[in-house]
């Protein structure tokens, strides 16, 4: 009897364990595969570091390729052809960043649900509604298969798939085990998905929405002033001959009558997720005459989403006699994106140009349109079925996206809007970067980038002869009529359509200017007095540009270490501009003791955002209070506060106009406020809030390091794999911006000296490995946090790395499955 019971119990236990061992249960992966000590989750520890030496084969590889990893885990790829170099790059990137490759491509393709399940459906819908996957297909189909634009992504795919095809269960990255998935094959079109996704990050704006929302509340004239086409502080990228910034003052007209039609349309435009100006970038260069060593110097630090692993991957590609380029690539791109070779160095900032326009369309059916009206005739819409699949291939949702000749058509709040966006047009370009990597001079680099289509960037380049240059890249549309792109145009007439694009000769740019340096920080690139043609609106106030230009003007013997120091400079023109205004207001207004105390505390501030500073937090508190007090006319009645924030340029202009009606707080009908009343009230309210939240001003809680941080999340936002609450030097609109959520920041810092021998320094937050267990996952973080850079190794030959080699990889021609 006992034996039978024991046998029955054994059957039950065995059945149960086999069940949970073989099948996922709820959020848990199949436990057998997961817990297996040799093949399962524990094996992740054994593959955390690269083996000292390894061999692999890649299909279509033309010749053997040697890869040497230096002591910073940077792969130096020695190949015999450019396509082989891209194959090897695909292999080494997949080896270190497989999850990132797949996630980024799926985000652009609108297919995240197939990997992570229905929780990602809104992100997928957004990508598909924006037309990103359709655009990628069109761009890819438009390629000549023999062109470098096609060959490089295909070669890169060969490398990625060689790694995936030979992946042992022990090599599977940790996150795939948690997701209980095997990596998908890499399609060459994924490189295009990646660039489209970058286009979305860098060139999608909701300018029209913000402006229209303001128009709905205060009329068109006031809205134009709140989101001005030209920056009130002119410090353009293209030098305009000034030796100091120029304030172009225009009086902000008083709030006008509401426009209810505008509100309806504004609500149809999805907001962009760009939340603050930490999502910007810096670059600058000095020519021979202003550098201590007589060599051109270049610095760049793109401010993007901070993530673990980093958006960047560092590599060196060598093809003797053809290519010798070092820099960073975005995993999925088949070439170096930012970097240097023996003759030039280059980097980008985002142009912030307006390359997306909306059109209000008339359709034949308000719910399921099939046609749209254009020039008095109905035209068929392109209908594209969208099928969203889950992790096991099951259909979880279906949809239809619609397209006019302009681009995607979206319905919200009863209106149909189409939009045209340069990111969705053109072909999938890889050649620009391939040619840039081979350029020998500033001129050759500019030629290489001439037909780069998207995203629009300010490309800065320096060469070994001492030349420096900057020029915008990308396509900038020309609109009809007044040329403005910040308004919604009627879709029923083709007269609303773009009429062309800027000729390259007109692009903002300069080469070897008399001032001896060049800089760009996402500000308005060209002085409207030089070229008034519309390029965009609501530009960043050029705070960072003011600071870097101030530093560069003051130093006629710049060293590479100065360039590094500038990248984390804690000075703030924004504070220099606003602190005196707050203090003057506090003096002018007869306030109480709290206001006097606030002013006294603010006056103690040296206007620098250093970690140990205890007063920056008060200034920021006052700046946070200001919009709610100033922009009461823009209060959203549903939430009782402004939901749109006008350009800070409008504040700059209002500061010159103390009695402007905008300063009056309509919520106090028996009193008329002026500029100083609002500024003083903001400062006072800031102090009251801080005393409540942080205690007395001498408390450590007032330290800047306790209040603003960098927060670097793992790609799946797993806290255990993230680096959070990193105290930073820098604040809003400083050269090293640290604001708000802390999820944006300097994603890569680089300084290059173009001497007889190129010398370069750089780092990014994180490490080369995507494996959270690897010591190469976060090894660069401490130096990044401290504002220090690593010396980048740029050997002419593999032998020069001897003594600094940490791993080698031999790649051989082979067929799939070798």
């Amino acid at each position: 009897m006992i034996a039978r019971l024991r046998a029955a119990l054994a059957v039950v236990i065995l059945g149960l364990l086999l069940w949970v061992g073989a099948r996922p249960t709820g959020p848990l992966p199949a436990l057998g595969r997961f817990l297996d000590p040799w093949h399962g989750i524990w094996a992740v520890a054994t593959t955390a570091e690269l083996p000292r030496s390894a061999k692999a084969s890649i299909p279509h590889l033309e010749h053997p390729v040697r890869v040497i990893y230096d002591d910073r885990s940077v792969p130096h790829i020695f190949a015999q052809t450019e396509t082989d170099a891209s194959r090897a790059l695909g292999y080494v990137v997949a080896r270190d960043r497989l999850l990132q490759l797949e996630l980024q491509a799926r985000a652009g393709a609108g297919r995240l649900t197939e990997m992570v399940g229905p929780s990602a459906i809104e992100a997928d819908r957004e990508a598909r509604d924006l037309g990103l996957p359709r655009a990628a297909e069109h761009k890819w189909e438009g390629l000549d298969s023999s062109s470098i634009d096609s060959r490089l992504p295909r070669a890169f795919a060969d490398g990625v798939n060689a790694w995936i095809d030979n992946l042992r269960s022990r090599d599977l990255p940790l996150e795939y085990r948690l997701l209980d998935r095997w990596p998908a094959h890499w399609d060459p079109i994924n490189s295009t998905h990646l660039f489209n996704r970058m286009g979305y990050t860098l060139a999608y704006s909701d300018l029209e929405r913000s402006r229209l929302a303001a128009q709905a509340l205060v009329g068109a004239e006031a809205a134009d002033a709140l989101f001005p086409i030209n920056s009130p502080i002119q410090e353009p990228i293209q030098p305009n001959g000034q030796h100091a910034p120029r304030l172009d003052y225009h009086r902000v007209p008083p709030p006008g009558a509401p426009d209810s039609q505008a509100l309806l349309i504004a609500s149809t435009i999805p907001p962009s997720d760009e939340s603050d100006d930490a999502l910007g970038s810096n670059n600058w260069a000095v020519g021979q005459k202003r550098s201590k060593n007589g060599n051109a110097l270049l610095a760049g630090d793109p401010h993007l989403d901070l993530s673990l692993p980093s958006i960047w991957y560092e590599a060196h590609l060598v093809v003797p006699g053809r290519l010798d380029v070092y820099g960073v690539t975005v995993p999925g791109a088949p070439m170096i994106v930012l970097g240097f070779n023996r003759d030039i160095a280059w980097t980008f900032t985002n142009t912030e140009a307006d390359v997306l326009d909306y059109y209000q369309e008339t359709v034949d059916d308000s719910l399921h349109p099939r046609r749209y009206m254009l020039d008095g005739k109905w035209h068929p819409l392109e209908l594209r079925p969208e099928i969203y699949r889950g992790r096991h291939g099951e259909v979880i949702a279906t949809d239809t996206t619609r397209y006019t000749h302009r681009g995607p058509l979206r319905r919200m709040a009863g209106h149909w809007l189409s939009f045209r966006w340069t990111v969705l047009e053109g072909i999938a370009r890889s050649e620009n970067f391939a040619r840039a990597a081979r350029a020998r001079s500033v001129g050759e680099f500019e030629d290489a980038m001439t037909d780069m289509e998207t995203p629009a960037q300010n490309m800065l380049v320096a060469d070994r002869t001492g030349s420096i240059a900057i020029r915008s890249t990308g396509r900038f549309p020309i609109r009809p009529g007044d040329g403005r792109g910040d308004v919604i145009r009627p879709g029923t007439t083709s007269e609303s359509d773009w009429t062309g694009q800027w000729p390259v000769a007109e692009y903002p740019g300069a080469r070897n200017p008399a001032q001896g340096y060049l800089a760009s920080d996402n500000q308005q690139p060209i002085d409207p007095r030089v070229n008034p043609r519309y390029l965009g609106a609501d530009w960043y106030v050029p705070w960072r540009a003011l600071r870097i230009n101030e530093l560069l003007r003051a130093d006629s013997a710049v060293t590479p270490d100065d360039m590094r120091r500038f990248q984390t400079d804690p000075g703030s023109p924004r504070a220099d501009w606003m602190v005196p205004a707050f203090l003057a207001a506090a003096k002018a207004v007869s306030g109480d003791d709290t206001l006097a105390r606030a002013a006294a505390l603010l006056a103690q501030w040296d206007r620098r955002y250093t970690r140990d500073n205890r007063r920056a937090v008060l200034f920021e508190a006052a700046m946070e209070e200001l919009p709610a007090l100033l922009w009461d006319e823009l209060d959203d009645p549903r939430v009782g506060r402004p939901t749109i924030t006008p350009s800070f340029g409008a504040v700059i202009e209002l500061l010159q106009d103390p009695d402007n009606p905008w300063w009056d707080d309509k919520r106090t009908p028996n009193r008329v406020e002026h500029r100083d009343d609002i500024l003083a009230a903001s400062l006072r309210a800031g102090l009251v809030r801080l005393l409540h939240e942080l205690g007395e001003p001498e408390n450590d809680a007032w330290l800047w390091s306790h209040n603003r941080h960098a927060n670097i999340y793992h790609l799946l936002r797993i806290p255990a794999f993230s680096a959070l609450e990193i105290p930073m030097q820098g604040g809003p609109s400083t050269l090293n911006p640290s604001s708000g959520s802390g999820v944006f920041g300097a994603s890569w810092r680089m300084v290059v000296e173009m001497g007889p021998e190129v010398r370069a320094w750089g780092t990014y937050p994180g490490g080369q490995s995507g494996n959270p267990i690897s010591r190469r996952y976060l090894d660069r973080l401490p130096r990044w946090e401290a504002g220090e850079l690593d010396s980048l190794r740029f050997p002419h030959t593999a032998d020069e790395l001897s003594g600094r080699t940490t791993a080698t990889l031999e790649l051989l021609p082979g067929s799939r499955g070798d």
Partner: protein
Amino acid sequence: MRSALIALVLAAATILLGWWAVPIVACVGGLLLAPRKWDGARAALAAVIAWAAILAWTAATSPLVKLLHQLSSLMHLPGWALIAVTLVFPMGLAWSAWTLGREVREIGS
């Protein structure tokens, strides 16, 4: 001695075939080897020793402890609990499969 050999076979089979090898080896052991007192429990212990030995080797050659800390933080479980689950799983598989194999053998004989 027999338990040590079984542990060795279980470790090797796990490395070669994966976790499925544990119930298969245990079931075959129960079917083919002469019954002894507590042999199901001995098989369970051998499985624990086999997987623990693999983990110990992994810990000696790689940052397993770091991984344990990360997983512990991720899953909101103490590290020892993760190790315990990892060892209890083959223990249950080995005991139940061995017992089943032995019962089948007894029915057959």
